[in-house]
């Protein structure tokens, strides 16, 4: 040991050392100096690390942005959709999608559609719609259209874009009552997208409580919960969903049915998550810090919620995200089969319910359009979930 480390005891003079002594304060990290970036990395919290890792997963980021946009659109559906959900155009039943043009006879007009001419096919007695290429009609933007009650707060009639003056605008065609498919799909997103979120929230809560009890207490609580999950998991979900939603009374209001369906979806979904919670808790409760908390007199609720759960919360969230698509799909399937939501509540499944008759669809193919957002959202959730799962373990 040299002088500068042993330090001089106060009051005892020492002979000056003959050799060189560096007067600079000693830096213990001199051999392994961290760059600013490294320092940032080592000092970052768990969630920050996850965010960095998630950001590197390109498809996941794009999907997340897409989903955010979709969810944002549900907040302002009334503004985006040119028509109201229930506006009927009896003169335009089963009108095909109109193409949006920009150039009319070599002249730039901005986005416009041609007026629709309706004729009757005298053989099949079907209406035939042909665009009248002599009459371009410009689409209006930020305009007044159907009135609506915005967020149940005030009446408004302002839309992002509307039909041209004196014409109609059916971007994705109309259905059997002459309702605009595009507007309906935009409105339906509200139901289809939220049912997944509510359902997963409920199933998450069930999984945390039941899985937590089973994992923490073990013993007979564990075996009861285990048996229940086994039975639920081993039974095909769709028939059971069908039976349960057929059991919802017909007299219920559509809103009640919506919540009923959410509960049914959650009831059959929680076992997967519950099992994950249980097995994690089983191993984590043996850790020293859990024992320490117990000895200091913490109650089980606090130990589970405060000490054990945060250890694998990120994993749980990732796997919950991965099961949202199955919820959305289940609702779509149920409504498609006519046992899920009922009009006037409109989801993508309810819209697809109109497409069950293949002979109708063969002529009016645009009735299949709701398939596109369903697949898009499912794919986006899948990619985002994958990215989240990879990011959930930032130290790995």
């Amino acid at each position: 040991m040299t002088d500068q480390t042993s330090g001089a005891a106060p009051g005892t003079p020492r002979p000056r050392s003959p050799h060189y002594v560096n007067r600079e304060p000693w830096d213990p990290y001199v051999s392994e100096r961290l760059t600013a970036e490294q320092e940032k990395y080592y000092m970052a919290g768990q969630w920050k690390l996850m965010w960095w890792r998630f950001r590197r997963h390109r498809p996941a980021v794009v999907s997340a942005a897409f989903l955010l946009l979709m969810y944002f659109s549900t907040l302002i559906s009334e503004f985006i959709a040119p028509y109201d959900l229930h506006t009927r155009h009896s003169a335009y039943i089963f009108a095909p999608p109109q193409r949006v043009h920009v150039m009319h006879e070599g002249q730039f007009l901005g986005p416009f559609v041609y007026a629709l001419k309706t004729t009757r096919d005298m053989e099949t007695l079907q209406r035939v719609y042909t665009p009248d290429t002599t009459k371009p009609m410009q689409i209006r933007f930020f305009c007044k259209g159907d009135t609506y009650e915005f967020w149940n707060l005030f009446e408004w009639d302002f839309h992002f874009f509307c039909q041209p003056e004196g014409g109609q605008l059916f971007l994705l065609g109309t259905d059997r009552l002459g309702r605009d498919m595009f507007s309906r799909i935009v409105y339906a997103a509200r139901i289809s997208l939220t049912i997944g979120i509510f359902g997963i929230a409920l199933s998450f809560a069930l999984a945390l409580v039941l899985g937590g009890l089973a994992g923490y207490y073990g013993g007979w609580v564990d075996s009861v919960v285990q048996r229940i999950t086994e039975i639920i998991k081993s039974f095909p979900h769709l028939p059971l969903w069908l039976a349960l939603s057929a059991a919802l009374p017909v007299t219920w209001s559509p809103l009640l049915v919506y919540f009923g369906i959410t509960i049914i979806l959650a009831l059959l979904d929680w076992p997967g998550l519950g099992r994950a919670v249980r097995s994690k808790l089983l191993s984590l409760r043996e850790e020293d810090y859990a024992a320490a908390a117990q000895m200091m007199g913490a109650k089980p609720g606090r130990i589970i919620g405060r000490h054990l759960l945060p250890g694998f919360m990120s994993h749980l969230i990732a796997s919950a995200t991965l099961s949202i698509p199955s919820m959305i799909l289940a609702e779509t399937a149920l409504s498609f089969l006519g046992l899920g939501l009922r009009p006037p509540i409109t989801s993508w499944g309810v819209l697809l319910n109109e497409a069950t008759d293949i002979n109708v669809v063969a002529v009016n193919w645009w009735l299949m359009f709701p398939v596109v957002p369903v697949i898009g959202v499912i794919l986006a959730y899948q990619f985002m979930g994958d990215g989240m799962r990879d990011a959930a373990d930032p130290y790995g």
Partner: protein
Amino acid sequence: MLLFVIRRILLMIPTLFIISALVYFIIDLPPGDCVTSQVDELLARGDPDALRRADELRAIYNLNDPLWLRYLEWVGGIFRWDFGLSCQDTVPVSSLIGERLALTIVMESATIVFIWTVSFVIGVYAATHQYRVGDYVASFIGFIGLAVPNFLLALVLLYVGKVYFGLSIGGLMDPEYIDKPMSWGKAVSVMQHLIIPVIVIGMSGTAGMIRRLRANLLDELQKQYVTTGRAKGLPPMRLLIKYPLRHAINPFVADIGGLLPDVISGSVIVSVVLSLPTTGPMLLGALKTQDVNLAATFLLFVATLTVIGMLISDLALAALDPRIRFGATSEK
């Protein structure tokens, strides 16, 4: 081993009882019964005898009995292959379901076989040719299979078939064979009609299986015994089949427990879309009209099928893996 088998079979019985009771009560839950809608129809037509007719019908179906009594009667009848009366046209349920059950079993077994063969071939190929074109193509197909819900796929296929090829995909046999006894021609016709539904139902299962097999096999291929085998000059094919594949094949047996419910769920909805003469459409109709006996019979049948499938998979696993045989549970 024998003890294990007996224990598993004994465990099946209470499970099935719980399920049967549960579904029976759930189906009966909503207010009204299957007679209600029929009577409403009669009333709407202005039939003066409607209410008397309703009482008659209720007496025929024992609907005035309490629920538990009806349940017990139904369960008791099962052992005599008597599932009570269907409410739709007052015929015994057993006469309605016979062929549908058989076709359902055929379709679901065919789907499982399809999933196994296709995912085996593609999975092994993708793992042994990692990061080549074939691997990417397989992954892509797998992803689509996972993401596109099967009833939408069925719908799209139906549309494409109808519009571009002019064929109607619905049904499971040519019209001339319907209600005819089994014959060679009928079997062939059923086979041809099975192709599309089997692909549609099996799509997502195949995709999942390919992913798992590929991942498992890739793990195994990196282990040292493979290097050793290569170093001592084993032919690649023989090396692959003899060692890593045997480990990687495990999910094929173990995952049937997860696969079977999926396949059954898928077959119900796909057969509704394609209007196949299997259990799906009839179950849906029965649930909508509250035909308790018919719907409960179908659901019980579905449950039995699943439970038996699970049993087979457990037994196969036990036969393959001594750790399970001797009491330890398998960790997935």
